[in-house]
């Protein structure tokens, strides 16, 4: 069954090679806990230059998502995972478009919108 499976690509979550079984989850846990603690620390500390905190939080979150994808979902760019990886890339692309696109459009709208006071003055 194994050789047949590899011929067709593997499903997400199945570790065809590399780190096996329970070790993969333990490595994931050992990477994810410090990243989580670092996120909560970065949000409360005064040691980090305040305007840089959101960037630091974003970097920590993306790193932790990467850890989860690699060690919990076992998605990789290996040749037998092309389909899974392409689907993930497309999902990330659409997610980024939706989130950053909305934020950009709404920020521009807010910027170009007349304030409520001015609007009511004109209507009078």
């Amino acid at each position, binding site marked *: *069954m*194994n*050789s*047949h*499976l*590899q*011929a*067709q*690509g*593997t*499903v*997400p*979550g*199945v*570790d*065809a*090679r*590399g780190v*096996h*079984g*329970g070790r*993969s*989850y*333990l490595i*994931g*846990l050992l990477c994810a*806990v410090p990243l*989580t603690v670092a*996120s*909560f620390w*970065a*949000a*409360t500390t005064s040691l980090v230059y305040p305007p840089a*905190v*959101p960037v630091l*939080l*974003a970097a*920590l*979150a993306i790193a*932790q*998502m990467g850890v*989860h*994808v690699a060690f*919990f*979902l076992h998605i990789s760019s290996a*040749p*037998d995972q092309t*389909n*899974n990886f392409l*689907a*993930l890339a*497309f*999902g990330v692309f*659409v*997610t980024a478009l*939706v*989130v950053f*696109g*909305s*934020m950009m459009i709404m920020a521009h709208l807010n910027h170009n919108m007349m304030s409520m006071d001015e609007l009511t003055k004109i209507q009078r």
Partner: protein
Amino acid sequence: MSAADPALPTEIGIPLSLRGAATIRVVAGFGFWLFLLSDIILFAALFATYSVLSSSTAGGPTAAELFDKKHVFLETMCLLASSVTCGFGSLAVQRTDARAMYLWMATTFVLGVCFVAMEGREFAGMVASGAGPSHSAFLSAFFTLVGTHGLHVSLGLVWLVIMLLQATTLGFQPMVSRRFFSFGLFWHALDIVWIGVFTIVYLGAR
């Protein structure tokens, strides 16, 4: 299913069209993976809504005033731990080791219930103090985003109970282990969404 062969597949050089039909396990796994990605795109829309509305508090309480970071940290740890125990449970399903499977999956269930209970308590406290979803656009967006995630976790718990019942009555048949496997993917994906929630909603509040 053993995955002991570390060698690269030799069939990679063969064109896809000549390789024959994929196994049902591959088809089902890939289909579920596509569903999970579409679910994540649903969350992307809710994240976008929250990001746009997070400062529209209509004179009500702001994000920085409402959230208790310690509480959220405990919730995060519950969900992370349950993701790992779910992974060990999936491995036990692959080994068809019933005792280990019940142990790990029961732990997963308890940790998931802890998470949902903590979130429910937070929501109830907010509504009781007058910061319900109808108070401002910010709170509507908050309850929609975090509530949708909580609903996913709750439905995942129902699914887990059904899977445990199926494992008891049907044993480790191929279809049962396939469903367990999809459940594992679902649970890990929810944990990934939660990383976005605690970073953007709870830690981004300032």
